[in-house]
């Protein structure tokens, strides 16, 4: 019983500590709103989360939904490319040697660098944002899929050989199930990155969403809303990761 209370209380203490630091900082930095002030100025967005008053002036859940939708599209595009790519590179030494340097060079490029390129190619902000999300988020999936394919136990490969499974059967019955947990670890990491990238891309393109709102409110000098956005981004990212982690755990338990 006492154990359960402690387990519930400890995170509360952690959050209280963060609020304390925040309050202390805001007392010394003139432009930084205090937690109370942030709540006062933001509560209309939280208490009417689905309200739409203008293009950017919308409830926080609505704004987050725009961002999530965009992330979903970019992420799905990314993994749609990354998963088959990972399998090909994992199965073929030749392809892997060929493309490994390319991957290693493209991987560390920041979304802020990709976005202008996307704008040049697509001329519109929405496809440029998707392009950026997909390009930045795909690498963990590529690398994890490669690792997954490489680490399939010889035992399973032998089963496929001994049963004389066809190429298609070997892929669907042995290769795919054996690599699935690795692939999903890749998906989880990719989604995390996609969510990081969305803010940057919305800031630069000014499209409605949590990131777009954040940048607009910064320009309108309403700093409390910046903090609202930061907290929203954090909470949504946390929930996404938990969700993917749950799916991943289910897959690994097989």
């Amino acid at each position, binding site marked *: 019983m006492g154990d359960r209370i402690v387990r519930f209380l400890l995170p509360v203490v952690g959050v209280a500590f963060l609020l304390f630091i925040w309050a202390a900082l805001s007392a010394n930095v003139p432009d930084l709103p205090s937690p109370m002030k942030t709540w006062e100025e933001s509560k209309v967005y939280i208490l009417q989360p689905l309200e739409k008053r203008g293009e950017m002036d919308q409830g926080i859940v609505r704004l987050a939904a725009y961002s999530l939708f965009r992330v979903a599209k970019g992420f799905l595009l990314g993994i749609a490319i990354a998963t088959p790519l990972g399998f090909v590179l994992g199965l073929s030494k030749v392809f892997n040697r060929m493309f490994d340097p390319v991957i290693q060079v493209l991987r560390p490029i920041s979304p802020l660098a990709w976005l202008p390129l996307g704008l040049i190619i697509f001329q519109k902000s929405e496809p440029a944002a998707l392009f950026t999300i997909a390009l930045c988020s795909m690498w963990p999936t590529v690398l994890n899929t490669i690792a997954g394919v490489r680490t399939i136990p010889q*035992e*399973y490969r*032998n*089963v496929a*050989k*001994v*049963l*004389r*499974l*066809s190429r298609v*059967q070997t892929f669907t*019955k*042995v290769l795919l*199930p*054996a690599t699935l947990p690795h692939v999903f670890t890749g998906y989880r990491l990719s989604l995390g990155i996609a969510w990081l990238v969305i803010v940057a891309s919305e800031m630069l393109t000014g499209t409605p969403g949590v990131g777009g709102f954040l940048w607009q409110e910064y320009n309108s000098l309403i700093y409390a809303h910046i903090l609202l956005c930061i907290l929203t981004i954090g909470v949504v990212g946390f929930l996404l990761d938990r969700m993917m982690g749950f799916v991943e755990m289910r897959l690994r338990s*097989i």
Partner: protein
Amino acid sequence: MAFVEVRNVSKSFASAGKVREVLSGVHLTVEEGEFVSIVGSTGSGKSTLMAILAGLQIPDSGTVTVGGKTVRGIHPDAAVVFQNYSLLPWFSALENVRLAIQAAFPDWPRTRQVDQAKRYLETVGLGKALQKRPGQLSGGMRQRVAIARAFATEPRLLFLDEPFSALDALTRSNLQQVLVKMCSESGKSATAVMITNNLDEALLLSDQIVPMTKGPRSKLGTPIPVKLPRPRTDAQLLHDPLAVRIRAQVVERLAEFVHEGQREARKSVEVPKVAQSKAIEEQL
């Protein structure tokens, strides 16, 4: 020409810059319908020989022919039972067996494949565990699934790579009986090659026992026929004079190998043969 012929097979592995010859000039013939056991201690290259027989590995030199044809890849009529069960953990017992049937008989309708899988799983005593995943089964039950999977494809040729060595003595003895039953029930008697480090197991199941020399550079000795009536039981094998004589013969042969090996290595100390035989038997 014998059904399975292994001629002059050699295989080496290079590891850490050293080339280790595991098999050197291995000969073996197995007639159709025969159950042959290859007996040797651990590290004698038994598993390498099995991998070559099954077509999982290619020998450096020499040939393996099955039914007059050189083995390239896995033989279509062969099934393999591995020491480590090698079931796919994401499928149920039924699906594991059905997958083998599906690969062997792609023309069969699904219901027939399922029926066949069920029948073989029931034969090995797993009628109530059809939907269980390998992770939910004990080691003995997993190996039952593996045996059902091997027999369900109605193979003409069966390779058994230390099939029971990961199991405890009691389970082991149960499964040996399952194997005897499966062998006698499969209409046309399947040809089988089993690798084992257990002499009792070899006596119980085989028509011939082939001793294998200690590695590296393992060879196979002259086959020793086991002309004991079937069905055989463990108890009978302990007391039957012929069985006792055959056992002694195999142990003797294995001891000679050790002896030869020592002479080759120019070891001056001569170990009395009887003591050595004992040591070998313990090793097995």
